[in-house]
């Protein structure tokens, strides 16, 4: 079957049957796109040789819509897992890739997604080494779900963990917050809201490697504030360390358009998801150096220190508002609900 013929068709249950149609889909789309020695063995799994401490992370991606401004579900599935491995202080190398496709997805969209995965994997320096494709009946899924698992070698200078967070540590964000979540929100059906907000979905592994090369153990904790947003990560730190975390509203980087969209939709940017952002908890001595290093990269251009870990024993995040008041940033309970008025 030629690819042009494939492109005009749609995914159906046969493509997940394990028979000839599955084989064709794999040969024409997957193997052709990724073309590497691990996949080319066409085996059920890959055999790796790793002589190092390794980090593994897995994540599933169910975003709706599957194509959005700035990225699509495929790129997101690479960036999300690559970043999770990087947040362990590791250098991501390998990725598994599993699809659950709802029958009826256009082959064209599927191929677009697969190609985006390939490009994102190349940009992140990772190889797709094993995978799976299942097809479910119409109505049993939502177009396409993707699971990826990432494997990486831990950086020799890395020592990242929650118990390394100390009183006085500085909290640095690598860029403006709430970009991804608002890009998705403003494109959801039913909102009738036009904006140019673009998802920040990107790989952060090289930026993290630069940090670890430069500062090693002085980087105490790394987290990417995806679902639950910046507040999710900070409240977790406050609760796990029982130290009050202080942040300053005036220092939190926030693009004008994103701030405006949050105002209109009644959402708090601290709770909105990010996909190309990380929070580094670092030794206060290196605060300025870390910010300077991050700002050299396009992905860290707007990096800023937004607060610190205080000595007060209390599992709370306190935000100092623009007008000098204080409030508690509490963890999100369910989905953030827009207000009526």
């Amino acid at each position, binding site marked *: 079957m030629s690819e042009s013929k494939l492109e005009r068709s749609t995914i159906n249950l046969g493509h997940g049957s394990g028979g000839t149609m599955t084989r064709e889909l794999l040969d024409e789309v997957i193997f052709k796109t990724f073309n590497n020695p691990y996949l080319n063995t066409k085996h059920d799994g890959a055999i790796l040789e790793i002589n190092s401490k390794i980090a593994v992370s897995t994540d599933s991606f169910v975003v709706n819509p599957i194509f959005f401004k700035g990225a699509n579900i495929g790129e997101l599935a690479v960036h999300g897992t690559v970043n999770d491995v990087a947040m362990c202080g590791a250098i991501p190398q390998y990725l598994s890739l599993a699809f659950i496709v709802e029958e009826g997805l256009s082959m064209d969209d599927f191929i677009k997604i697969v190609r985006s995965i390939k490009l994102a994997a190349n940009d992140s320096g990772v190889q797709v080494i094993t995978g799976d494709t299942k097809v479910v009946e119409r109505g049993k899924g939502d177009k396409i779900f993707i699971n990826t698992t990432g494997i990486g070698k831990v950086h020799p200078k890395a020592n990242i963990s929650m118990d390394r967070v100390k009183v006085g540590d500085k909290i640095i964000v690598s860029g403006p917050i709430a970009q991804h979540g608002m890009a998705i929100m403003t494109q959801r059906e*039913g*909102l*009738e*809201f036009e904006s140019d907000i673009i998802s920040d979905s990107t790989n952060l592994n090289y930026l993290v490697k630069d940090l670890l090369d430069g500062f090693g153990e002085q980087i105490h904790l790394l987290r990417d504030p995806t679902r639950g947003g910046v507040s999710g990560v900070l409240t977790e730190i406050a609760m796990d360390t029982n130290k009050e975390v202080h942040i300053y509203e005036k220092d939190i980087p926030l693009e*004008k358009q994103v*701030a*405006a969209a949050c*105002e209109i*939709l*009644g959402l708090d940017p601290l709770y909105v998801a990010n996909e190309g952002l990380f929070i580094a908890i670092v030794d206060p001595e290196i605060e300025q150096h870390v910010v300077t290093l991050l700002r050299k990269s396009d992905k860290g251009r707007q990096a800023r220190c937004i607060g610190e870990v205080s000595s007060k024993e209390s599992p*709370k995040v*306190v935000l*100092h*508002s*623009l*007008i*000098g*008041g*204080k*409030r*508690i940033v*509490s963890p999100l*309970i*369910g989905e953030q*609900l*827009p*207000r*009526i*008025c």
Partner: protein
Amino acid sequence: MKYLNEYRDLETTRNYLKRIEETVTQPWNIMEVCGGQTHGLIKNGIIDLLPEKVRMIHGPGCPVCVTPLQLIDKALALMEQGVIVCSFGDMIRVPGSKKSLLEAKAEGGDLRVLYSPLEAVKIAKENPDREVVFFAVGFETTAPANALSVLHAKKEGVTNYSILVSHVLVPPAMEAILDDEFCNIDAFLGAGNVCAIMGTSEYEELTKKHNIPVVVTGFEPLDLVQGIFMAVSQLEAGKAKVENQYSRIVKDEGNIAAKEVISKVFEVADRDWRGIGTIPNSGYVLREDFAKFDAEKKFGVGDINTEEHASCIAGAILKGIKKPHECSEFGKRCTPSNPLGAPMVSSEGACAAYYNFSETH
């Protein structure tokens, strides 16, 4: 953001706080009527910056909080009948007597969260074989858009669209609060958004009758501190008049076009308020001409009646008689993840605002 950043300015806000401090000589209880104002006060940490003598009391102006339990049960009954129920976001987690709309959705109900009721009319047009109901909750602020959705549906001959009305009005609630024997309110910050629609004239009579200052106030930090300053200044000078802090938005006559749309579709009637009870002439119902857009009549759910959770003191909270932390269930059995009553659900609700944001209360 123009027209927002100016109203979040540190220096100007501090200046007003200083003027409040210099003006106040005795304790005053000031009620901010609107939930949006409560949210603004607490989100920006303003309460802790005010002098001790200025005590803010959180009013009943949270639409989610005052929507009676049986209305949620009615919406749930509609979902069970296979109706597509459309709602504003913050209604969906409010517990009905057995579950919330969100839980009903997880069990298979068709719930759509929308920002505009006009979107619900569109859904009705796209699903001609289904019934679509918009849960028309709110004060005077959401009434124009909800009324407009009915006018649109009528004009376009959309017969599978109707609304479940739970519209309440601010001035009668303020009147009811003042009539309460335990009332200790010295001044009101009027709801700026409500006045943007309805104007300020409604408050003249209330001010005269009860000899109480009403300052129509906005929602940004500077609006709030300026509104509080104006209220304190009146109180200290022994004055009681209607003043408009939010004049960049609110005109004395309100929004005439919006008011016309409202009166075309709705008429004033007695309404139940969650936690407060029935207040005469305190809300809207659909006019007889639009009866076929009334979901209660269309689906026969008008008779559903439900009792409140016994230990919730929402009524005393909404009238400002008690503070959230004075409730024995606050933060214990009643939390935002497991709310016993509505003020703990919406971020505008006094209890949730206290629980989520406030450091010292």
